[in-house]
């Protein structure tokens, strides 16, 4: 919903964490967030055609000193698994994954995507945190960036409709 604080709080968290390269692929529920990422002068924004190339772009950015994040739907996580395994995990690369959690409880579509998201992340050894409350966004984004850099593996934040301002009243 217009004026919802979630997307802005997420971008503030990214800026405060020093994230300066963000690769993205749209989802209607990510629309407000991606507009703010594209408008942030501190952030190099790379719009993707397919999510797995974002794994590569963020890896290249990391290798030369950028702090990177990849924003996508959970379908994009599934598209990216080979890159996650044979690049991020094989070399121990950190990466902040901001994943729209389609098929979350209360959603009317993508329930299979929702069901498979956390098991796939668990199988990959990727720690994940569900973000619902906009008030927690800045702190969680900053902390997960610290965690992924220490862990030297990707860490995921699952962005729900609640934090993205896309939950209709009464839903």
């Amino acid at each position, binding site marked *: 919903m217009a004026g919802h604080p979630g997307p802005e709080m997420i971008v503030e968290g990214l800026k405060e964490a020093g994230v300066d390269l963000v690769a993205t692929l749209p989802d209607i529920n990510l629309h407000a967030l991606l507009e703010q990422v594209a408008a942030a002068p501190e952030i190099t924004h790379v*719009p993707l*055609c397919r999510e*797995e190339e974002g794994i*590569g772009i963020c890896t*290249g950015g990391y290798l030369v000193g*950028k702090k990177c994040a990849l924003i996508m739907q959970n379908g994009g996580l599934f598209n990216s698994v080979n890159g996650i395994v044979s690049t991020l995990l094989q070399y*121990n690369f950190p990466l902040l994954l901001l994943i729209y959690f389609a098929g979350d409880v209360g959603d009317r579509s993508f329930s299979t995507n929702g069901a498979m998201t956390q098991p796939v992340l668990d199988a990959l050894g990727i720690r994940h945190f569900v973000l619902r409350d906009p008030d927690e966004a800045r702190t969680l984004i900053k902390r997960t960036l610290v965690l992924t850099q220490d862990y030297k593996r990707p860490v995921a934040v699952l962005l729900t409709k609640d934090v993205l301002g896309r939950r209709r009243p009464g839903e």
Partner: protein
Amino acid sequence: MKRIECFKVMAELAGDALAVTGAGGNTVEWYACRPGDGNFRVRTMGLVSSIALGMALGLPHRQVIAIDGDGSLLMNLCSLPTIARKNPPNLTHVVLDNEVYEASGEIDTATGAGTDLVAMARAAGIRRASWAASPDELRTVFSEALEGGDAAFIGLKVETSRSEVPPYPMDEVENKYRFIRHVEKTEGVNILSMPMPVSFLKD
């Protein structure tokens, strides 16, 4: 053309450019021609050009060379429009097209049946895309590419052949650290510095 003839020309001109290579012969033959820590070997088929794009965007004043194969690029064709969209002038994407999946048993790729990767690059919006048919032509287009202006794409039709070169001398994690230390040293930046321990800090 033989792949290693192309690499000899490129190595002569590459200077301190960062280089990204993919599967099989490309990596070991390039490393034999241009050894050093400014080389990064990719393990995910298709991601050579994407990783090089990330480097080029992250270090806009440094030349970055993606050394790709036809099979690898065919797996990640969406990299072409993404490169075109950002158009980093410091990125040169070279594809050695031998028309087979050489490292996977020399089975034909689509390029032998008529798929033209340079035409695809142009159609994706990469303005500076051309074939080089000989080492001399490569010398010309590769030198021009390194001068900047637009992202460049160079196609090279090469024979299926492997030269006698040593194996790649390190694993993935060592490659990562050596590459990052090389960037830190040559760019004067800190990428891996660790925070001070809490016990060291004063309240």
